């Protein structure tokens, strides 16, 4: 009778909506909670081929938009993503991906950064023969060349890239277009389309006096040297000019290379600094000083090189038109002594290789480019990523790559341009305060960081990954937005049961019941108790129970081992041990385990169902006393179990065959004992029932 089982409520969870690639966030977190790490990996990779990378460095707009913020703190989504990718490393290598059969067309991609390689993946999956040209000796772009190793180890970058190359994408490193191979020659090689994904590799410099002094380095080259292990000698005092994420990376790298005093000078005020807030905080923890609202005036140098820098007060960064147009008070200056100056004030692309190709630039020196069709001025030549969007995050580059690939595919198949705008998802919106107030607060499991004093000493990753128990505990906090209760109005009798049962005051009845998606916290109590069976959750329903019980078919009865079906709450698991179904139906515990996200959502019919299919006993194992995330759910479950027991008495097979247990400590600590208890109870109930049955 699950004709009203919904796929979802037709709205996207706000985490998913906020993600530039619309990662199915809520879905992968639920997959983690259910122990399906491989499914979680598939979900992540379906949106973002650079999931391992983003698991380390993404700026997680999903977290900023997590609706749980209204209750306590957002889910640690980046941490969970990293956990999944770490757990499934080997699985990812061995599993095969099958794209569409080869369609005979070829595409060239210049630049093996995240946007280029994402486009390469998508095109390869659609059957195109793809070749990626990379100027340097290794792929990854900024991921491998600029982002410091303490944030992103290179082998992590290669995990993602290897998975893409495994689709048959050809990678040609050490092939700089314009140097090793001219653009004109490239175009002779028979590619049906070309994607310019060259990123912003050129660091900008300052035109102030003393800029040519020794001891001055540009941001990206500096980071690249650090990443490649090229020895960089820095003095004790270093000034970094810039307020963005690159400047932060530069500053933190400088600390690790031995600088004792690192000062970041930015035009922006502290609040305006464009770097991610948590990065700024981590930098400050590492001892970096900030000097916001100052601009570079002149560099002082001596015989050995840089001695200091004179700064002038920056009174304003953006003008009335919100344009970058800094203003200064030249009369207010200050002097900072330093041995090195590292400049991280922005980047650009070198388009010199396009001269004579017909690919036009704008008067400001940027590519002439359509932001929706991804086309340049030459049909068949497209562009994506930071080179055309300006500086952005890795995941935004991935999004750009996806859209470019879609645009290119259309053009390649039809010869016409397709607009591929940013997809806006219908967002479920904020969690209303009156509901958030009633939700139980759960402490966020923070990702462990190495102590600041210790971590500046080297380039080791300073962030620990979650243990399995931590990840499961954090995943449990997810509210599973947009998978809540859905009422089938034609069946609703307006009996008000859902209104009375909902612990959060979400359900209301006008002519029929209504469970607004933006309020529902997915506890499932209304669905379990609706007398008209008119409410279903897209998250978990009777069909799933039926599927799992189908495994009982063909299991032979054993006098000493009664067939027991155990409904267990996933939230008490600290490992996958019980979350994944065993090889044998009854496992070594002798029990068919059905894992349920909160057993309080089990209907009476679901509790009885095992007996229809051959079970001799049912154990329901709930969370530890008082631990259930949903208020009143424990008590309601108890009433339902008692009713089921009464019905079993009524039928004549005896209510003693069903029992409700509470976990003690954790699943791993207590379930085996509880199953043993259940077995003993049911064995003794067994002798009685046989006699009673023949009525």
């Amino acid at each position, binding site marked *: 009778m699950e004709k009203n089982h919904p796929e979802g409520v037709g709205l996207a969870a706000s985490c998913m909506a906020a993600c530039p690639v619309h990662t199915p966030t809520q879905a992968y977190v639920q997959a983690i909670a259910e122990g399906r790490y491989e499914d979680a990996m598939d979900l992540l990779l379906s949106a973002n081929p650079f999931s391992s990378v983003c698991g380390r460095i993404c700026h997680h707009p999903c977290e900023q938009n997590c609706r749980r913020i209204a209750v306590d703190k957002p889910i640690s989504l980046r941490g969970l993503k990293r956990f999944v990718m770490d757990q499934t490393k080997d699985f990812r290598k061995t599993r095969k991906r099958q794209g569409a059969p080869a369609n005979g067309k070829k595409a060239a991609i210049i630049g093996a950064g995240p946007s280029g390689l994402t486009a390469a993946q998508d095109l390869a999956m659609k059957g195109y023969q793809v070749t990626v040209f990379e100027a340097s000796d290794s792929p990854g772009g900024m991921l491998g060349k600029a982002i410091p190793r303490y944030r992103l180890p290179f082998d992590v970058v290669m995990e993602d890239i290897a998975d893409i190359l495994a689709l048959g994408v050809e990678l040609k490193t050490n092939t700089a277009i314009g140097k090793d191979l001219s653009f004109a020659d490239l175009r002779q090689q028979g590619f049906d389309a070309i994607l310019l994904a060259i990123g912003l590799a050129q660091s900008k410099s300052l035109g102030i006096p003393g800029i040519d002094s020794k001891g001055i380095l540009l941001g990206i080259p500096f980071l690249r040297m650090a990443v490649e292990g090229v020895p960089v000698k820095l003095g004790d005092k270093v000034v970094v000019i810039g307020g963005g994420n690159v400047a932060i990376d530069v500053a933190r790298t400088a600390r690790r290379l031995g600088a004792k005093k690192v000062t970041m000078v930015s035009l922006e005020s502290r609040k305006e600094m464009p770097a991610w807030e948590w990065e700024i905080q981590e930098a400050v923890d590492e001892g970096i000083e900030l000097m916001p609202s100052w601009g570079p005036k002149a560099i002082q140098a001596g015989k050995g090189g840089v001695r200091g820098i004179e700064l002038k007060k920056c009174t304003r960064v953006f003008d009335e038109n919100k344009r970058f147009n800094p203003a200064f008070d030249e009369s207010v200056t200050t002097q900072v002594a330093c041995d090195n100056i590292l400049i991280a004030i922005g980047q650009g692309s070198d388009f010199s290789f396009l001269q004579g190709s017909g690919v036009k630039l704008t008067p400001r020196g940027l590519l002439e480019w359509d932001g929706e069709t991804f086309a340049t001025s030459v049909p068949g030549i497209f562009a994506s990523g930071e080179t055309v969007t300006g500086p952005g995050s890795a995941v935004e580059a991935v999004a750009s790559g996806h859209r470019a690939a879609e645009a290119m595919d259309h053009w390649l198949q039809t010869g016409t341009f397709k607009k591929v705008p940013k997809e806006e998802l219908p967002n479920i919106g904020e969690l209303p305060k009156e509901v958030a107030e009633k939700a139980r607060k759960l402490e966020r499991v923070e990702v462990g960081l190495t102590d600041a004093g210790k971590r500046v000493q080297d380039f080791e990753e300073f962030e620990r990954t979650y243990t399995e128990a931590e990840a499961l505990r954090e995943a449990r906090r997810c509210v599973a937005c947009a998978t809540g209760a859905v009422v089938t109005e034609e069946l609703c009798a307006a009996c008000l049961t859902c209104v009375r049962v909902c612990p959060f005051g979400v359900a209301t009845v006008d002519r029929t019941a209504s469970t607004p998606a933006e309020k529902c916290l997915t506890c499932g109590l209304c669905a379990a108790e609706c007398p008209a*069976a008119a409410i279903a959750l897209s998250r978990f329903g009777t069909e799933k129970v039926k599927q799992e019980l189908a495994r009982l078919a063909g299991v032979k009865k054993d006098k000493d081992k009664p067939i027991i079906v155990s409904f267990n709450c996933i939230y008490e698991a600290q490992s996958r041990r019980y979350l994944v179904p065993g090889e044998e139906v009854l496992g070594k515990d002798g029990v068919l385990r059905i894992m349920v996200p909160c057993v309080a959502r089990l*209907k009476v019919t679901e509790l*009885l169902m095992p*007996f229809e299919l051959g079970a001799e006993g049912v154990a329901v194992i709930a969370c530890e006393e008082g631990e259930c995330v949903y208020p009143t759910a424990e008590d309601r479950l108890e009433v339902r179990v008692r009713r089921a027991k009464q019905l079993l008495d009524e*039928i004549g*097979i005896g209510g003693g065959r069903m029992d409700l247990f509470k976990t003690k400590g954790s699943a791993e600590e207590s379930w085996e004992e509880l199953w043993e208890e259940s077995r003993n109870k049911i064995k003794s109930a067994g002798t009685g029932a046989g006699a009673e049955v023949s009525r």
Partner: protein
Amino acid sequence: MIVAERKPFAEIKEFLAPYKKVMILGCGTCVTVCQAGGQAEVDILASELRIADRQEGKSREFITGTITRQCEPEMVDPILEQVKRDQPEAILTLACGVGCNFLAERVGKVPVFPGVDTSFYGTALEHGVFAEMCAGCGQCILHLTGGICPIARCTKSLMNGPCGGSNKGKCEISTEVDCGWALIVKRMEELGTLDKLTEMYAVRDWSKSFHGGPRKLLIPSVKIAAELAAQAEETTKPGAKS
């Protein structure tokens, strides 16, 4: 609304013992609200029967479903179609007595068994607690008793209660039963209309209740249409006055 309670399983099991293909039909209105016969209860009963069958080594076919109301022709028609198609040997309905009657008269050669004991017209005092409020007497006198019915809520249906058995607001038959007349007196005190009760309320005409025989009701427009039709027939009869 009509309040009913599901019959004991043993009784239903016995009704259905001879049949191998049974339709279990729920009703989506009153019995859903009082949790006796909605889809959820249909599912539970079907499950119980299947479990019981399994214990006896039996396996039967159960067709289950619920319709919005079993007392409405258009809503029951699709079931009649389905019965013709699927040919169940018996139907167990969880609708109230009204639905059971209605279905039984229309369904042809298939026995229809009642799955619930229909009890009263009542209200939900709180979730899951229902109390009798109205006796369907056909001649409402609630304006005389502050809105509280002496026929349904006084055990003896007294018109001039309370009798001597009223004890601390409860009826002599049980402390679980409120004395309807105690409620009436209290309410009319509250309304300031207690003086109405100094006059004897006259002997009742019970012929309007079911004591006068099974009742039928036509809504005004249908009544009028019937009258018009009768008139028309009169004037077209041979020998009719023009």
